[in-house]
């Protein structure tokens, strides 16, 4: 059974990282539905870095730099220029899917064989230490949001941006910072996939994980600590699904695929109006 737990944790970690970043951005009042694209960019940059012979830690570092760029680009469009974040995110997904496929061709050439990169070594808990550490990210975010002055300002940008502005603070600056950080988290999530369980790159390797991470944020009702059990549940369900798939069960496998979507929908439906979402979510900065 140890194999099962290990796989569940490895599957949960990328989702958790991406969802933590998204939650941070949404608490600041913006929303990046192009998280899938950011994860994809992270995965590709980690792959390309790994192929150049650098160690997995360097691949993660390179991916976070790319994520920073992705986050700042989103901030330029959706925060500073106040374009509709939903539209920017939708197009960003398309761009990231195309750009990573294009760049993969250039890096990998015409080869049909699978190009592998090296993965992180196992650490203290049977999983790589960096994977274990990602479970602390939501805890840190929780403490940061609740206990620090910048954390409170970020929450204010999402709940009552006018109040923040009347204090002479820039909502655009706060949200842009949140977008940059969430880009780093999203790309790290994608990169974590590549340096742990799927050490290669194929077109669309993230396979909807960015959308699942968006669902996790809703399911967790925008509370960082709730992300941990939610991601573990999802990781466990996915790991179980791999087992069932290997066992040849048709129905449960697809049922588990659909489960996260159903659960998040139910969470939304049962919650009272908007289900705990930040009040200014998706509205332009004043």
């Amino acid at each position, binding site marked *: 059974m140890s194999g099962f737990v290990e796989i569940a944790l490895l599957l949960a970690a990328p989702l958790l990282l991406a969802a933590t970043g998204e939650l941070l951005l949404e608490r600041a009042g913006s929303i990046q539905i192009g998280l899938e694209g950011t994860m994809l960019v992270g995965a590709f940059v980690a792959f390309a870095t790994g192929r150049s012979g650098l160690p997995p830690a360097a691949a993660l570092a390179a991916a976070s730099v790319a994520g920073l760029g992705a986050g700042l680009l989103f901030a330029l469009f959706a925060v500073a220029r106040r374009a509709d974040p939903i539209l920017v995110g939708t197009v960003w997904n398309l761009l990231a899917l195309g750009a990573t496929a294009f760049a993969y061709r250039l890096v990998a050439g015409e080869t049909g064989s699978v190009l592998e990169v090296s993965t992180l070594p196992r650490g203290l808990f049977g999983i790589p230490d960096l994977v274990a550490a990602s479970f602390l990210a939501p805890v840190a975010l929780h403490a940061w949001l609740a206990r620090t002055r910048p954390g409170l300002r970020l929450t204010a940008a999402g709940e009552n941006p006018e109040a923040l502005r009347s204090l002479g603070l820039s909502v655009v600056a706060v949200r842009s910072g949140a977008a940059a950080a969430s880009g780093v988290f999203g790309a790290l999530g994608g990169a974590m996939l590549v340096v742990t369980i799927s050490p290669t790159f194929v077109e669309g390797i993230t396979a909807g994980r960015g959308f699942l991470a968006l669902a996790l944020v809703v399911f967790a009702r925008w509370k960082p600590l709730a992300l941990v059990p939610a991601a573990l549940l999802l990781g466990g369900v996915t790991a179980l699904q791999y087992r069932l798939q290997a066992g040849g069960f048709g129905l449960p496998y697809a049922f588990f695929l659909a489960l996260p979507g159903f659960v998040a929908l139910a969470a*939304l439906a049962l919650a009272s109006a*908007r289900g705990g979402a930040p009040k200014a979510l998706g509205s332009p900065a004043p």
Partner: protein
Amino acid sequence: MRVRSTLAVAAGTLAAAALLVLLAGASPAEALAALVRGAFGSKAAAGETFARSTGLVLAALGAVVAFRAGVLNIGLDGQFLAGAAAAAAVGPLFPDLPVLARAAVVLAAPLAGALQAAPAAWLSEKRQVPPVLSTILLNLVAAAGVTWLVRGPLRDPSGDYPQSRALTDAALLPPLVPGTRATAAVLVALALAAAAAFVLARTPLGLAMRAVGESPRAARAAGLPDVRLRTGAFLASGALAGLAGGLEVLALTGRLYDPFSAGVGYTGIAAALLGGMTPLGSAASGALFAALGAGSSALQRDAGVPSALASIVPALAVLGLLLARARRGEDR
């Protein structure tokens, strides 16, 4: 001003595309020639462009109908899948009656698309759940549904791969011109674009929909049935995307497999944005994206430029447009 910014976006996109071609080690002129040849250079190439237009035009229309009524339906991809699944389910039921099989597909696919959108419409009006979130989740559910269907109830027992039973050749739409893949499906899509343009611009219903989209409160105060209009637009949008999925099966694939959509629903939204959220403009951008898609395989084969260029260019153009508009302070 509008013309100047449009030209700037077009020039910027072309420059970026040329840069990408150079990065891939090809000459931009040769790449352009290969692209045009692949999209229009022969009967088969032009047919491919038309064939690919169907889904994109219908998905873009779906986006226009919803967005103009103020509904951010990001679930077109899931609605496309629902329509395709319905087509794959009902199409093979009438192996000896091709006409009935076609009729069943053309009825079931839009219905399935509308049903796929219905939970999001209900959640939006009754529970104030933003459609953006609910439709993204419903896309996940639809994708899982296709995975299940092609391995479970719809699986073709005679095939090695998980895919649905095929429609009979007689039921599939025949090519308009022999030797091409273009069928009457593309004419259906273009006719619907014209119809949508007429309804939106020239009828009281279209005016009411736009009013609700532009200013929900004012429309409500003026006595318009805002909930019904939004819900109707949402379902109609789902029906258009569902029809796109159904016609994909009926005209091109003949069956359902997994994964079935290459992001048609999302690209449709991009086409609608580039088309200024008007039905005819969106149909034109949908056809342009289809030509890019058809041309890109020749681009890869003849000029060695990865065909993914065809999905980068539209995204860049729309991003440029969003930036140009945001700079002018327009909302959408």
